[in-house]
């Protein structure tokens, strides 16, 4: 009887401790960029430079209760204009050209673009297709999920983009890289077009961490697109 009580106490203590870890900081690195310019393509040097810059970029996901942020760690170390532009190109072409902020309680998501624009959207949960395919990432058992959406390509034809995520149910936090979230576990690996993000450092905290949403004038996605395409 004494042994049973001890085991039950240990179980409840562990559960309580796990649920008390309500915030975290995840570092993502670029695992792979599966892109090679065609041999007869021009400006390969600039593309190659952008790829190597992109591969060295890292990102930080912070989450706490009902808020999260995903931000680039580059842009803080650049010393000169050339480096800054190369970094910008790498973010645009290969990794992530925005910092992302989510407030689930207010149902809003904010995209802070690399050109300074702040786009505000109503947050809508993504419809992921969860599969039974699994693999281990580090020591975590992860399952594969996909999400797809259509958009208008620059040739005015409808395109489809498929995002592949590997999430760990043992890390019950519905967050991930970029604006991809809503799975029943932390996304440890995410493939978006040619680029794969990989969580390389996971820090979980018992205390809630402060996540500040950016302040300033916000515009809609439509207004942003109009602004960019008008050349302003």
């Amino acid at each position: 009887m004494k042994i049973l009580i001890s085991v039950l106490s240990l179980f409840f203590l562990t559960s309580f401790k796990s649920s008390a870890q309500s915030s975290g900081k995840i570092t993502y690195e670029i695992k792979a960029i599966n892109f090679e310019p065609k041999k007869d393509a021009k400006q390969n040097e600039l593309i190659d430079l952008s790829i190597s810059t992109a591969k060295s970029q890292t990102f930080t996901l912070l989450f706490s209760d009902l808020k999260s942020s995903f931000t680039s760690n580059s842009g803080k170390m650049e010393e000169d204009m050339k480096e800054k532009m190369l970094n910008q190109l790498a973010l645009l072409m290969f990794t992530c050209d925005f910092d992302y902020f989510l407030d689930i309680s207010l149902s809003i998501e904010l995209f802070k673009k690399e050109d300074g624009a702040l786009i505000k959207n109503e947050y809508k949960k993504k419809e992921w297709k969860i599969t039974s395919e699994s693999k281990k990432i580090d020591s975590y058992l992860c399952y594969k999920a996909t999400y797809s959406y259509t958009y208008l390509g620059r040739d005015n034809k409808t395109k489809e983009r498929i995002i592949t995520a590997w999430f760990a149910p043992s890390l019950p936090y519905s967050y991930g890289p970029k604006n991809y979230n809503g799975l029943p576990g932390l996304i440890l690996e995410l493939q978006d077009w040619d680029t794969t993000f990989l969580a390389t450092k996971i820090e979980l905290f018992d205390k809630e961490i402060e996540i500040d949403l950016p302040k300033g004038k916000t515009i809609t996605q439509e207004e942003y697109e109009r602004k960019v395409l008008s050349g302003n």
Partner: protein
Amino acid sequence: MKKLFFSAVALIAFSSVSMANNITIEEESISNINKIEQKRILDDPKTDFCSNIAADVLSSRDPDNKLSSVEAYRIYQISLNACLNFIKK
């Protein structure tokens, strides 16, 4: 008295017209300077060269037109700026 009154009115009217003209001339000068500057940039052979470079970067990155118009335009803009600032013809 009447002559004096009408002279004053004429003087005020003339001054107002002159001032309005001055403002217009100043605005026109600024507009001309902008036009001259724009023409200088557009006529600069380096702009043509860099436009081609920016277009090449875009087509190298996206030969299958997978990018959206906005993404493509931003890549073009930044590639153009990078070329104008750093690449020697």
